[in-house]
C-alpha cells in the first residue's frame, strides 16, 4: 500500500514516518512537520488542544492522498495527525511524500498540508493563560 493515514492520540514518531515512505525507487522525500508555536498574534500560547471528527477526518485525509497520487508521480504519501493536548514544540501533524524526483515531492507535500488545513475536520483550541479560543471559529 502506498498511502498511510492515521489519527493518533499519542506523540508522532517522525523517524518511523520517514522510514515508511522511503523506498529504493524514490530519489527525494519532502516532509512537512507542524509544530506548536509558543505564540499567536503576539499572545503567549500555553498549550494546544486538537479534536478530530475521526471517521470523517480519515476519509478526507484519504481523499487528499488519493488526489496526490493522481496528480503527481509520487510513490508514497503518509499523513499522520495527532489529537489531544499538546505542549509547545510538540508535533500535531506530519506529512511525508516520496517521489522519484523532488519537484513532485515538494508540490504534493505542499498541496497536502494546504488542503488538510481547508478540508479535514480537525479543530484546534488555543489555551492561553487567561482563557481559551477555538481557532478560526469566528470572523
Amino acid at each position: 500500500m502506498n498511502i498511510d493515514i492515521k489519527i493518533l492520540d499519542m506523540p508522532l514518531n517522525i523517524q518511523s514516518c520517514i522510514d515508511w515512505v522511503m523506498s529504493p525507487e524514490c530519489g527525494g522525500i519532502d516532509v512537512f512537520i507542524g509544530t506548536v508555536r509558543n505564540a499567536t498574534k503576539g499572545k503567549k500560547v500555553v498549550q494546544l488542544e486538537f479534536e478530530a471528527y475521526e471517521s470523517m477526518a480519515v476519509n478526507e485525509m484519504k481523499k487528499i492522498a488519493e488526489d496526490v497520487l493522481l496528480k503527481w508521480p509520487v510513490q508514497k504519501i503518509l499523513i499522520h495527525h495527532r489529537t489531544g493536548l499538546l505542549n509547545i514544540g510538540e508535533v500535531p501533524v506530519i506529512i511525508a511524500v516520496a517521489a522519484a524526483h523532488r519537484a513532485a515531492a515538494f508540490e504534493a507535500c505542499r498541496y497536502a498540508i494546504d488542503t488538510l488545513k481547508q478540508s479535514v475536520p480537525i479543530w484546534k483550541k488555543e489555551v492561553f493563560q487567561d482563557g481559551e479560543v477555538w481557532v478560526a471559529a469566528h470572523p
Partner: protein
Amino acid sequence: MKVNVLAFGIVKDIFGNSAIDVDINNAATVEQLKVQLEEKYPRLKQLASYMVAVNNEYAQQDQLIEIKDEIAIIPPVSGG
C-alpha cells in the same frame, strides 16, 4: 422524525453537548435542519461559517436527510 446531530469544536460549546437530538420533518433538507438549529442556537449564526456533514461527507444545502444518516455540524476547521 428524530435525528442525532454530532457537534465538534466550538459547536460542542454552543450545543452544551457533543451530540443532540433534533426533531425534523420527514424529507427535510440540510438547509431546513440548519434553519431549525439556528433558531434554537442563535450563536451558530455568529460563526465564520459552518458545514453539515452527512455520513462523513460534506453535504449540499438541498440534500435530503434520512433517518439513519450520521449528521455532524462542522465549524471552520483548524487542523494541521
